[in-house]
């Protein structure tokens, strides 16, 4: 099917492209044609899906979810799913000047010719890119303006656990893991098309699929103080919608024959997903809660998938990915076998998010055989008291012991990640970070095998963003001024030339917090910001805080309502319609324990009764 694809490409668009491409940065990301992209014969296709990722090609092609769903939908006979990414600013300008509409990479056909428009949304600051893409495609932005069955817009991904800020633009949401539900959704659409259903009727049909949330089937009523009074489902709509999960991850389809990009992407290597979910319950971590329950793959399946994908793609790097790979049950047998395979073929294997425990230390030394990469610790907080409050189960002793072994083994590069603005955090705890950094520095002085090479300790600080479905979903965000004061305080105590200190932009995290816990009224703000030129907000080259502040003014919305106000414990939350498995009462309990600095054991050491086990057919979690 690959042959003759060039003739099959849309000629008008190509004529425009050949004028534009020489004028833009990295044109390879706009042409498709990569090894093993899927090309189908249009005569055999009844439904075309434009799979849109609201960020650049380099980010989108690094996203495992995109690759899985692309493969799964393209396995459906009669359905062709193609990729679309957000053009960089220079390309967007060139497209608008030349009148070139948004097109899909495989066929180069305009997106406006497609039936279904799917978005995968993983980051709040990519919301305006959704509007850019719809607009470049020539598709009306608002769900209410799209009356026909063509151009139904649906979305999934991590951000859609609070879908409300996007409710104006998206017809329906697919919650949780899409391996099964996406196929059901596409088939439901084809059926509706065959029967000639109206869009309204289709939305009621698709809403019957478990995991599908149709925002227009719910009315949000507000109190005079601006908080939600009630969320009222229309007759026939379920009170809550439960996310979908894959029951048997080992049997699930995996992209072992991936598209191989012709230009460098962010994660330019084979991605082996060892498990889904995380056994830890860090109280700030949305992914930790929303991906529950943890489901490991067997090492046999993983070994086969790795070998197949490496041989198919020709990748010379593989990464064992998951939220917390060192918690993967069978890490030892898997890495034993894979290291042998990789070393023999000069393939570099990396295991991100290694913990500071014994096994990880051994593994670290083993991986050194292939390549020496830096040490990374997500300590998140500077003192044990605060780490207990956020349930980050890592001790100073673990960190220092690991550093000691690593420094003795020749490593001289450490990265530490922290958050500032955490609930209950005090100034002493901010300075606790500096103390920990000095202890690491002294460990290097005492144990380094080669002191002449010096040591680099990178300290990266992020501004805590309270997210829905976490133990901290009700918390007030610290003000940007206070966050910056704490950053400055820390910086003053980190004056050592071996230490490099970076902290995240306060403004970006403030808006991220606003959008993460936003309600439907933020749809207008997103649109106003976009109309004022906001785009690619996740990129420093484009992020423009002033445009957002002006947009908030345009709409008469107070951002502090969503950030520093905090949500009342008995308040109706905008995301109350969504059920990720983890119960609200559990999150509340986690919040109380945080204020008592009490840890909760991880799922392997004792079930804390979060409720996510109910998503499993047997009802029992297997950490």
């Amino acid at each position, binding site marked *: 099917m690959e042959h003759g694809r060039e003739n099959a490409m849309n000629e008008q668009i190509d004529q425009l492209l050949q004028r534009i491409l020489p004028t833009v940065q990295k044109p*390879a990301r706009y042409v498709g044609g990569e090894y093993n992209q899927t090309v189908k014969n249009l005569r055999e296709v009844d439904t075309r899906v434009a799979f849109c990722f609201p960020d650049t090609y380099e980010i989108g092609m690094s996203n495992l979810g995109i690759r899985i769903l692309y493969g799964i939908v393209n396995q459906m006979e009669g359905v062709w799913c193609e990729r679309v990414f957000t053009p960089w600013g220079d390309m967007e300008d060139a497209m608008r000047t030349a009148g070139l509409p948004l097109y899909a990479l495989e066929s180069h056909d305009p997106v406006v010719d497609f039936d279904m428009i799917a978005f995968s949304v993983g980051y709040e600051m990519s919301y305006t890119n959704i509007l850019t893409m719809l607009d470049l495609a020539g598709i009306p932005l608002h769900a209410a303006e799209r009356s026909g069955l063509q151009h139904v817009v649906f979305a999934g991904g991590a951000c859609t656990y609070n879908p409300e800020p996007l409710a104006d633009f998206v017809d329906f949401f697919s919650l949780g893991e899409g391996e099964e539900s996406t196929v059901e959704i596409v088939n439901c659409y084809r059926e509706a098309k065959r029967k000639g259903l109206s869009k309204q009727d289709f939305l009621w049909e698709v809403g019957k699929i478990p995991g599908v949330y149709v925002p227009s089937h719910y009315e949000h009523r507000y109190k005079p103080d601006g908080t939600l009074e009630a969320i009222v489902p229309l007759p026939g709509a379920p009170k809550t919608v439960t996310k979908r999960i894959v029951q048997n991850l080992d049997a699930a389809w995996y992209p072992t024959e991936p598209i191989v990009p012709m230009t460098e992407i962010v994660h330019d290597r084979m991605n082996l997903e060892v498990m889904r979910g995380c056994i830890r319950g860090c109280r700030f971590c949305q992914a930790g809660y929303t991906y529950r329950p943890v489901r490991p793959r067997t090492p046999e399946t993983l070994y086969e998938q790795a070998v197949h994908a490496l041989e198919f793609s020709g*990748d010379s790097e593989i990464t064992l990915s998951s939220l917390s790979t060192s918690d993967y049950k069978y890490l030892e047998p898997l890495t034993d076998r894979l290291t042998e395979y990789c070393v023999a073929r000069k393939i570099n294997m990396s295991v991100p998010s290694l913990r500071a425990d014994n096994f990880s230390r051994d593994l670290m030394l083993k991986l050194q055989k292939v390549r020496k990469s830096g040490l990374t610790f997500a300590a998140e907080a500077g003192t044990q008291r605060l780490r207990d409050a956020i349930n980050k189960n890592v001790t100073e002793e673990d960190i220092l012991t690991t550093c000691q072994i690593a420094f003795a083994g020749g490593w001289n590069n450490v990265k530490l990640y922290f958050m500032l603005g955490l609930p209950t955090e005090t100034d002493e705890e901010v300075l606790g970070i500096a103390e920990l950094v000095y202890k690491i520095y002294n460990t290097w002085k005492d144990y380094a095998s080669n002191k002449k090479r010096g040591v680099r300790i990178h300290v990266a600080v992020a501004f805590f963003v309270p997210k829905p479905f976490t133990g901290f979903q009700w918390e007030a965000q610290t003000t940007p001024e206070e966050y910056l004061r704490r950053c400055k305080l820390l910086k003053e105590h980190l004056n050592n030339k071996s230490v490099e200190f970076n902290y995240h932009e306060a403004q970006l995290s403030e808006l991220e917090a606003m959008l993460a816990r936003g309600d439907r009224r933020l749809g207008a703000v997103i649109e106003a910001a976009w109309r004022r030129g906001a785009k690619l907000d996740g990129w420093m080259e484009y992020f423009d805080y002033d445009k957002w502040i002006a947009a908030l003014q345009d709409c008469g919305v107070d951002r502090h309502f969503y950030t520093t106000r905090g949500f009342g414990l008995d308040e109706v939350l905008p995301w109350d319609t969504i059920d990720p498995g983890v119960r609200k009462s559990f999150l509340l309990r986690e919040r109380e324990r945080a204020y008592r600095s009490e840890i909760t054991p991880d799922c392997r050491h004792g079930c804390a009764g979060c409720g996510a086990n109910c998503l499993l057919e047997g009802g029992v979690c297997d950490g």
Partner: protein
Amino acid sequence: MGRLRFTKEGVAVWSSHLDLMRALMRCFRRAGIDLKHSQGFTPHPELSILMPLSVGVESQCELAEFTLAEGCPVPIKEVAARMAPVLPAGLRALESYEGGKKAGKLAWLRARLTLTYDGGVPADAEAALTALFARPSLVVEKFGKKGPTEMDIAPMLRDLSVLQTPENAGDGFLASLERTKEERASTLSVEAVVAAQNPTLNPLLLATAIETHLPTYKPDLVRCRRLEIYDADGAVFR
């Protein structure tokens, strides 16, 4: 040491030199051909491309040089056939062979520019361009790493001819403009042999020369294609 001769056409022209290197390394692995790796901290496969190609330029005469790993059972002559099925769109393996002339002997490159005039080719363009490139000196501004420099391209040019674009002047992605008669009437080709090493003349500078010295004949679109490479004696370089 072996050589692989291949094309870079179609969508592949938009990949940079570094992208192409990465893609070729993956293709060797996909084809099950082990390359020799350098020693050291981060071993690299021994693979290089003789003349890096600018983004957007087509070629039917690219040469890569590689060294097989010790014990690799694939004969060098079979490398091209093994690579063929695993190459991405736009790359075609033409042949592979052992040895070949020393890279330093590569001296000349034959290339073709296809100039598109949206309003049709100006009536006397053929004559005007022929006269331009016959000048004894032709200075153009070149943008290099150290900023703009002036360069006289006349001594680095040979066998230049200006012609109506023949049918099938290109393959793939960029060829669509040449499908119909009217479209052929809007394009003109400049074919020339240019210096390939010490110093190198990027054939795209011929278009810069037109823009600089005959601005009224500035084309609306310029496409470039490498056709063949030669040694100092004018023999085909392999």
